[in-house]
């Protein structure tokens, strides 16, 4: 590998490094298999770096800075914390694809020819090869019969046999389709690259964290990404709007703190008309993790969820929407004023984050600035604490001056003369939306790549044979030469056994023929 490189450099030096020579050198290097292999290894090591070093996409920058201290600026300059978007990594990727593209033209034709062309070799050509071999044959009563026997013998062994017209030459092969594997696989890689390029110019992604009820349009999503800037972008942004109707979480009945699935139901509505009238419903659908919803070329994915910070409660029969506007020891809570001097403090606890069996509220009653039932003024000593059980235990009731109110209970609970119901928290569903016109092309590339690499499991085996008579001695000989890219020793062994069997059968036939006195002259 290196010697060839030095030869090329030497030839460049001798020729004075003209531009044409440089271009030719670059072209030859780009299409060389050696460069492709080096790039594969270097990219593998680069991926390893991207895993060993924390990446800013997944780790907070402050954590990385703390971890690497004084070395941080140097490593940052090398792009080791954004390996997969670093210019050097992208350049390596680009170079590999260029190498595949350019290199493909070099070996594509010979590989295709090897898989499809039928060629024959004469004994003189076979003799000139490194592994061409000769098998001496017994005296033949009929060379035509012996040749036909050879054809049948090889066909019986599973080879496809081609006979050269007007001569005793054969070309046999098995698994030629396997030779097409690298062609299909490399074309698939190029198709995937094309699909990615097409996608870069046409697709978009958007993200929202959306509470039910409010419509939103894709273009106005808080996160809206296109790979290329507007003048070059060829995609289309739909004008319709999306209204989230509901979001809910289903938990495993036997494990109430473990989410089984997240569901969002939504409807698509046309944009409001000139008079501001709400649009008509174009579609309704639901989605969950692994079950996206599609409409008009846009796919909706269930990405995340979060409480919006609002709670639906009922106090003394009056429905209220309260905001979690206060905090105590990092725990958000809402305040429901009752009289100028008294109020309820509502601390929500959620199954998904607080590991409680049921979403619930812990309610405190505050009068004249102090929590009723607590010896000290601060409520932190008595609560809030998530309740582990489905109902407040009697000991808990005695220990804390608070009320446990589970979500969705039909009956109101009485607390300091107030009837309190917790209807539900308000959830926002995290939706990821994507328009990707390149998907069919990309999937075609994926399928082709899979077919290509699976074809590689089929081993191509070729053999060339020539049954001829030695000009000097007049002895019948079988010259043969084989080629395979895999399991060479094994194939050679099987091939030798196959031909030995043929020679044995032929010898036996000739002996029988001689015994019966049958002589056929060609």
């Amino acid at each position, binding site marked *: *590998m290196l010697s060839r490189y030095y030869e090329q450099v030497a030839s460049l030096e001798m020729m004075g490094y003209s531009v044409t020579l440089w271009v030719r050198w670059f072209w030859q290097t780009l299409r060389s*298999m*050696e460069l*492709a*292999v080096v790039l*594969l*290894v270097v*990219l*593998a*090591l680069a*991926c*390893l770096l*991207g*895993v060993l070093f924390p*990446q800013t*996409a*997944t780790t907070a920058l402050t954590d990385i800075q703390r971890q690497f201290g004084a070395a941080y600026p140097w490593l940052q300059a090398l792009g080791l914390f954004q390996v*997969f978007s670093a210019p050097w990594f992208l350049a390596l990727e680009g170079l590999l694809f260029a190498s595949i593209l350019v290199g493909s033209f070099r*070996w594509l034709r010979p590989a295709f020819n090897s898989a499809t062309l039928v060629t024959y070799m004469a004994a003189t050509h076979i003799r000139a090869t490194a592994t061409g071999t000769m098998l001496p044959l017994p005296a033949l009563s009929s060379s035509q019969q012996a040749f036909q026997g050879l054809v049948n013998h090889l066909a019986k062994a599973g080879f496809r046999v081609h006979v050269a017209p007007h001569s005793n030459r054969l070309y046999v092969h098995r698994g030629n389709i396997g030779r097409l594997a690298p062609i299909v*696989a490399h074309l698939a890689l190029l198709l995937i690259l094309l699909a990615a390029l097409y996608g870069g110019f046409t697709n978009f*992604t958007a993200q929202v964290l959306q509470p039910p009820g409010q419509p939103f349009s894709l273009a106005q999503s808080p996160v809206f990404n296109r790979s290329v800037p507007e003048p070059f972008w060829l995609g289309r942004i739909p004008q319709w709007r999306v209204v989230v109707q509901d979001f809910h979480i289903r938990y*495993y009945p*036997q*494990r109430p703190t*473990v*989410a*089984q*699935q*997240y569901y969002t139901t939504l409807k698509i509505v046309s944009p409001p008309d000139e008079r501001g009238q709400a649009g008509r419903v174009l579609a309704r659908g639901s989605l*969950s*993790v*692994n079950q*996206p919803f599609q409409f008009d070329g846009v*796919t909706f*994915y*269930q*990405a995340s969820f979060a409480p919006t910070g609002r709670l639906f409660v009922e106090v003394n029969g009056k429905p209220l929407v309260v905001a979690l506007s206060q905090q105590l020891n990092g725990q958000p809570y809402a305040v429901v004023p009752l009289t100028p001097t008294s109020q309820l403090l509502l601390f929500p606890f959620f199954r998904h984050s607080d590991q409680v069996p049921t979403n619930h509220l812990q309610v405190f009653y505050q009068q004249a600035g102090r929590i009723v039932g607590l010896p000290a003024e601060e409520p932190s000593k008595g609560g809030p604490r998530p309740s582990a059980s489905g109902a407040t235990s009697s000991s808990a009731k005695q220990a804390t001056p608070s009320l446990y109110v589970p979500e969705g209970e039909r009956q109101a609970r009485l607390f300091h003369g107030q009837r309190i119901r917790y209807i539900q928290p308000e959830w926002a569903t995290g939706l*990821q*939306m*994507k328009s*990707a016109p390149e*998907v069919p092309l*990309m*999937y075609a590339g*994926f399928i082709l*790549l*899979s077919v290509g*690499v*699976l074809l*590689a*499991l089929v081993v191509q085996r070729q053999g060339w044979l020539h049954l001829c008579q030695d000009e000097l001695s007049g002895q019948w000989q079988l010259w043969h030469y084989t080629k395979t*890219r*895999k*399991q*060479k*020793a*094994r194939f050679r062994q099987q091939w030798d056994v196959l031909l030995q069997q043929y020679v044995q059968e032929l010898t036996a036939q000739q002996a029988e023929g001689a015994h019966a006195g049958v002589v056929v002259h060609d």
Partner: protein
Amino acid sequence: MLLSTTETALFALTAFLVAGALVWFVFLGTRGAASRRPGWLAGWLLLLLAAVALLVLLVERSVVAGYIANTNMYESLLTLALGLLAGLLVWTRKYRPLVSFAVVGLLLVLGALGLASTLSQSIEPLQPALRSYWRAIHVPVVLLSYAFFFLNFVATLLHQWFVRFQPDEDKASQSAELAFECATAGFPLLTVGVVLGAIWANEAWGTYWNWDPKESMALATLLGYGAYLHLKLTTDTSQTVLDAVAVGSVVLLLITYFGVNLMGVGLHSYGQFG
């Protein structure tokens, strides 16, 4: 949910059969009777029984769990062991005189079973991201490719052994051929596995590729073995260099399979130890 009695019994049976096959192949190797049909067949049948027992274990566990059992490291190691056994069944038959391949391969299977026995074996409810039919396809394909790459490593070690420590040209050449065959079987599977993963990621998250540590390392492994195959098929690189590339690639594979899980980060972190 803890391990059922049936599962415990099947696990013990598998380990017993694998150990039995190992002892038998060692016996055949020391007696120089590896290629004699009756003796070899007995060892091969023990391998087959071990594979069947492990398959039954995984099916039983899947029935109990209510989903295909390949969601944690314990189940993953069992699937890997099954892949190793499948590979051994095929290649010990093709390369019968290479009894040391069966011995080292079986040690690897025992290692996988031993490591699995130290991990949490409880059946946990599936998280939403894993509730997909793609998991049932993507994970076994990838694990089978890992198994074949590990067998490539075994054959690579044997090649170096028969070149350096116990020179035997015939066995060295067979080992080299076997290593190549294992890699040619693993490479398409890993490629298909990565492609299936990309399609699943697009269905579940709306993106084919996230440069998640597991994905990045799987790509690195794929590139490593891609380099190995290209060197073997298109250049006249020496077998020693090929062996070195195979060893480098198995290091990448070990990081992909174990290292990333130990880090416990990324979208594939449900495969953690514990």
